[in-house]
């Protein structure tokens, strides 16, 4: 190589102009994808915002605090759908938190590698079951066999059954995120604990769990957000497809944010165009979007904290 004799300049290292052009084009094409994802976010926010504002201009504020959620009659009670959502989410997390966390501790601290290899895919299968299937299961199996078996005065479709269904769907998320966090705890901490004579239960609960707490909290927050946004389970199992009065009774039907949207859209031949009933869909969407966005931001912040610690 004769070039070796000459002093090193930058240009030969940068390659030929043609090569640099290709590289530049590719970089631009790839960048377009990232910009598109931002456009999607902007699109979501704008499409929700405009129609929601138009909805709020059409109605009087008192309609948002009517006796119930009956969009076709002009009653858009926000407390009704929020109460339903709160009940369903509460029941769901009461199931998903202990079961998911228990499974995570077992997989991370107790299970042998071979058992893990079999059990983890099974959890992933559960995560892959479409929510409409769980909704039908909640309506036709959980409600008659479990809910009505435990409470004889429970109705044919109940918020409780819907909550259990949503909880089942949330278990894999709680389990996998918090298991990841526990497995990220350095082995040296476990060994130090055992070296001091601690038992496995003490090591799990007093050493590993506190060390992984950020990830566990993140798992619970993200699962809550997912439970609030879950639609098809409540649309099928919570009843009240036409509308519902304000209720706090988990043993009866009730209306939930997401299910109210689904039933509005499922009957959208009647409500379409610029009617208040149709646009209430976007108002509910905006409420849902804001709640889940806040939860996701907080959850993500916790996830990042676990990543930084060790």
């Amino acid at each position, binding site marked *: 190589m004769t070039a070796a004799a000459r002093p090193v300049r930058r240009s030969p290292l940068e390659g030929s102009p043609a090569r640099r052009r*290709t*590289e530049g084009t*590719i*970089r631009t094409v*790839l960048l377009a*994808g*990232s910009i598109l*994802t*931002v456009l*999607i*976010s902007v699109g*979501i926010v704008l*499409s*929700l915002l405009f*129609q929601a504002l138009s909805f709020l201009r059409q109605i009087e504020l008192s309609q948002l605090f009517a006796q119930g959620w009956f969009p076709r009659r002009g009653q858009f009670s926000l407390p009704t759908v929020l109460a339903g959502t709160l009940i369903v989410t509460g029941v769901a997390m009461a199931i998903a938190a202990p079961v*998911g966390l*228990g499974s995570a501790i*077992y997989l991370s601290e*107790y299970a042998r590698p071979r058992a893990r290899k079999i*059990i983890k*895919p*099974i*959890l*992933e*299968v*559960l995560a*892959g*079951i*479409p*929510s*409409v*299937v769980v*909704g*039908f*299961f909640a309506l*036709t*199996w959980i409600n008659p066999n479990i809910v009505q078996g435990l409470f004889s005065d429970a109705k044919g479709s109940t918020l409780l059954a819907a909550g259990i269904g949503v909880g089942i769907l949330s278990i894999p998320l709680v*389990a996998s995120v918090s298991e990841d966090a526990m497995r990220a705890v350095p082995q040296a901490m476990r060994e130090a604990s055992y070296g001091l004579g601690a038992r*496995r239960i003490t090591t799990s*609960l007093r050493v590993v769990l506190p060390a992984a707490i950020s990830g566990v909290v993140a798992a619970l927050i993200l699962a809550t*957000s*997912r439970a609030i*946004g*879950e*639609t*098809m389970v409540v*649309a*099928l199992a919570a009843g009240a497809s036409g509308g519902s009065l304000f209720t706090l009774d988990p043993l009866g039907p009730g209306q939930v944010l*997401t299910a109210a*949207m*689904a039933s509005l*859209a499922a009957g959208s031949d009647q409500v379409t165009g610029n009617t208040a009933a149709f646009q209430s*869909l*976007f108002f509910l*969407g905006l409420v*849902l*979007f804001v709640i889940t*966005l806040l939860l*996701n931001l907080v959850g*993500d912040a916790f996830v990042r904290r676990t990543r930084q610690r060790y």
Partner: protein
Amino acid sequence: MTAASVAAGTVRGTLRATRRDYAGLVFAGLLLLSLLFTLAVLGILISDQLARGLPVFAERGTDVLTSSLSSRPSQAGLAQGIIGTALLAVMVSLLAFPLGILTAIYLEEYAPANRFTRFFDINIRNLAGVPSVVYGLLGLAVFVGFFRGLDVGNGRNVLTGGLTLAVLILPLVIITAAEAIRAVPNAIREAGFGLGASRWQVVRKLIIPAAAPGILTGTVLALSRALGETAPIILVGGILGSFSGSGSFVDLTTGPYTVLPLITFDWARKPQEEFRALTSAAIIVLLAVTLLANTFAIYLRNRYDRKW
């Protein structure tokens, strides 16, 4: 007995716990129980659907798969849903996979570590957490409106459904693909650059082949998720109830359509008892599609899981 063996015995005695560790046993039992709960739910769910749905297949055979929708349960079938789901699968794969993988490559291999990149990253993570029903609203406002503006039917067709689902799983595809690319060790990149390869050559010849199994797993999981989605399709106007189409390509893409999960939802809320069994039959087909895709993805990952 020598003094040494006595000493060894004493040490062993103090190390061995004298009391049974009941709290520990109960705790381990509870943990196992929570895992068994999950497995039991999965088992009951699947066996319950099989018990309800298989008699329908036994009675009508493949007729259930090949007939069109009908308000009469004895004639209703899944054909239109199977076609709709297949069309959506093709559309979602063509739109979301290339776009998602290219974006992941940009974020991992090209993007400078600055404020914009961090913003892209946070934005994508949040998009992945947006409830699917909200994507349905986006599809309704943007895509349905756009196709209606073009005067393509009433805008409620497979194209808008496919676009909506593609946007829905795009963040998922990006995140999983980015994780797979990140797992490729830096030594491989450095080796490529050291031989004088350009960035794109390194990406194309080294990074993509090394990350391919991980990327493939992520995309298949995302596709399976898209095919099971119901709520967004309800919002962008998949047909509930029955309809007839000519079966021509134009009609398939711009006319009314439905998908398997939507039929499941529609039948599940019908009051007639016969539709209960039909719903389970539809669920068996739906689960066969989504769980096969899932199992395939998990198999791929376990088969090609590489520790660098």
